[in-house]
């Protein structure tokens, strides 16, 4: 079916000022192919099924809308955790501020270097997982990213890596428009943790492709900064082998627009995929989690746990799908999306989907929206806890199931501290 002319025009305008990076033959081919995909599907419009809850205009626009830079009084994220730091300023790699790209059990280098090398392991993954993830649901911004992002990191873990790779995204220019692309392969028996933090830019497009071989484990924790006006669209494409583990948690506080997509495909038996998020918005905040988990193997376990705390006009959206393919018996799929609406102006939109073609599976999903429980609030206050603190405790109680998905205690404690900070800055009295 031909694209409507308006989409063609919008897509053409969007890519007009962009240049395909030049590199090795394979990389150029992957980028050209991604550009072709983008032109075929076009940028999203409000009538697209998966864009009904979120307006794509800010992401479609040729120029990024300016976003003020927040001066934080908090210590840097993950400060107390021993990690390999890689710093990007408005999407530009900062070698000075970064640690040396070397660690035992890792092959790690910049995307620009990898895509200039004729023979490279990343060839099999770069743009390939993204392309797989384009059906049945189009993800135009991911194709845009594969085509035009020149910067990023490629990481191959060959054993249990001693410390997390920490990607730090600083936002320093009010008009920056950044794209980063990451390619990650976790080999058999390897174990890798990737941390991300920071707003990255006024407008940020990030794509991460993660392939986990049989028996590999990948842990991912990110925090998307505190800047109020920034916009972000991110994708994570994960392909899981047998007995592999994928665990991802995202904290989002503030941000005018956030669209976090995750496309997870379980291709080997006995895989485990958990994806969780806690989002807190106050005012001009629109946060969208769009998740697609495919079970295409036996005995897979997947969990989606998404919690949003919304007030003062903030909007949360969740589109989560579990697809169980024929033959994916003994699948255990779980999905929960919940919002805590702190006032009557907040809004939560949810679309849970299950599509199951195997007959011996356990899949459950639930979605709720509610206010702070009066009975619980009274109980805490009757013990002498002031109303504001009691409300915050109950908000943390609401978020607990998502926070529990973070395995590492020190990282979880850091995330919890950020949540408490966000709440206490808004506490009544």
């Amino acid at each position, binding site marked *: 079916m031909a694209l409507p002319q308006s989409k063609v025009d919008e897509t053409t305008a969007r890519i007009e000022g962009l240049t395909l990076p030049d590199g090795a033959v394979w990389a150029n081919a992957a980028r050209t192919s991604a550009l072709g995909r983008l032109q075929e599907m076009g940028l999203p419009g409000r009538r697209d099924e998966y864009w009904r809850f979120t307006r794509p205009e800010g992401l479609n626009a040729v120029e990024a809308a300016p976003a003020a830079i927040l001066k934080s009084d908090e210590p840097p994220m993950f400060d107390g955790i021993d990690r390999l730091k890689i710093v990007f300023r408005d999407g530009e790699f900062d070698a000075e501020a970064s640690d040396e790209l070397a660690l035992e059990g890792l092959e790690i280098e910049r995307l620009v270097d990898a895509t200039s090398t004729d023979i490279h392991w990343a060839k099999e993954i770069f743009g390939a997982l993204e392309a797989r993830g384009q059906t049945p649901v189009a993800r135009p911004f991911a194709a845009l990213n594969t085509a035009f992002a020149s910067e990023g990191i490629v990481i191959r873990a060959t054993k249990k890596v001693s410390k997390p790779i920490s990607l730090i995204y600083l936002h320093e220019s009010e008009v920056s428009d950044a794209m980063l692309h990451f390619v990650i392969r976790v080999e058999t028996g390897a174990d890798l943790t990737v941390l991300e933090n920071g707003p990255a830019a006024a407008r940020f497009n990030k794509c991460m492709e993660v392939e986990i071989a049989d028996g590999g484990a990948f842990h991912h924790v990110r925090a998307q900064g505190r800047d109020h006006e920034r916009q972000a669209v991110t994708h994570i494409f994960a392909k899981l082998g047998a007995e592999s583990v994928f665990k991802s948690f995202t904290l989002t506080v503030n941000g005018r627009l956030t669209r976090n997509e995750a496309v997870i495909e379980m291709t080997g038996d006995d895989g485990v995929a958990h994806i969780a998020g806690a989002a807190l918005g106050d005012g001009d905040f629109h946060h969208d989690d769009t998740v697609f988990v495919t079970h295409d193997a036996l005995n897979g376990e997947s969990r989606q746990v998404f919690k949003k705390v919304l007030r003062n006009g903030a909007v949360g959206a969740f589109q989560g799908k579990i697809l169980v393919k024929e033959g994916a018996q003994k699948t255990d799929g779980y999905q929960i999306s919940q919002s805590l609406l702190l006032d009557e102006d907040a809004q939560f939109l949810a679309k849970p989907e299950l599509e199951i073609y195997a007959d011996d599976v356990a899949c459950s999903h639930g979605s709720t929206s509610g206010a702070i429980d*009066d009975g619980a609030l*009274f109980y805490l206050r009757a*013990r002498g*806890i002031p109303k504001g*603190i009691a409300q915050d405790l109950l908000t943390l*109680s609401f978020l607990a199931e998502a926070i529990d998905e973070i395995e590492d205690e020190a990282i979880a404690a850091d995330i919890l501290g950020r949540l408490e900070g966000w709440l206490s800055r808004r506490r009544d009295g």
Partner: protein
Amino acid sequence: MLNINNLHVKLEEEEKQILKGVNLDVPAGQVHAIMGPNGSGKSTLSYVLSGRDGYEVTDGSATLEGEDLLEMEPEERASAGLFLAFQYPVEIPGVGNMTFLRTATNAQRKARGEEELSAADFLKQIREKAKSLKIDADMLKRPVNVGFSGGEKKRNEILQMAMLEPKMCILDETDSGLDVDAMKLVAEGVNALRSEGRSFLVITHYQRLLDHIKPDVVHIMADGKIVKTGGPELALEVENNGYADLLSEVA
């Protein structure tokens, strides 16, 4: 300690009068029991005293050591020394029992202008007190009341009471849902807290709790009022003859 004078209370949302002139004095150091049939207003009285939403005081007063309770927020009443042991303690997933108790203890101390308890002192106190109520370390770590049995929830209420050291304790049907052993344990916890400066108001349907927590005075409540006041023998009379006899006699 607690003085209730001609207290009239209706539901906020509807024209339904629940308390129709309650008069009650609980002097320092005494244990008073309120008994009465279902719907007589016993639990409403406990909620109104502790400040739950949904009730409107239309007349009368309630003071704690001369301070007007009804003007205070629930947390202010708690800091002033009022404690309600809930009939149905609330489950709070994701908030550890210890965190909850420490937040509450220190919030009250802060409100009273006292120094907050250090983590070490708090831990020492809570361990001691938990032990006598047979509350193990696991129960202290678990989220507040989540997965607790009926007996564990009530013991947890008494542990909170022991930590917060209130002056005026209201026990709202603390015996409901307890077997005999659990009731004894709870009663022992309460009795250990009895002192000259601390008063109790024990709300119950049945006399059996009062075998273990011996009251100084027993009140019978019916249709929103205290209709009869007497000694412990009044509770036995209820046990033997039921409320119907007693109420017809009063009427």
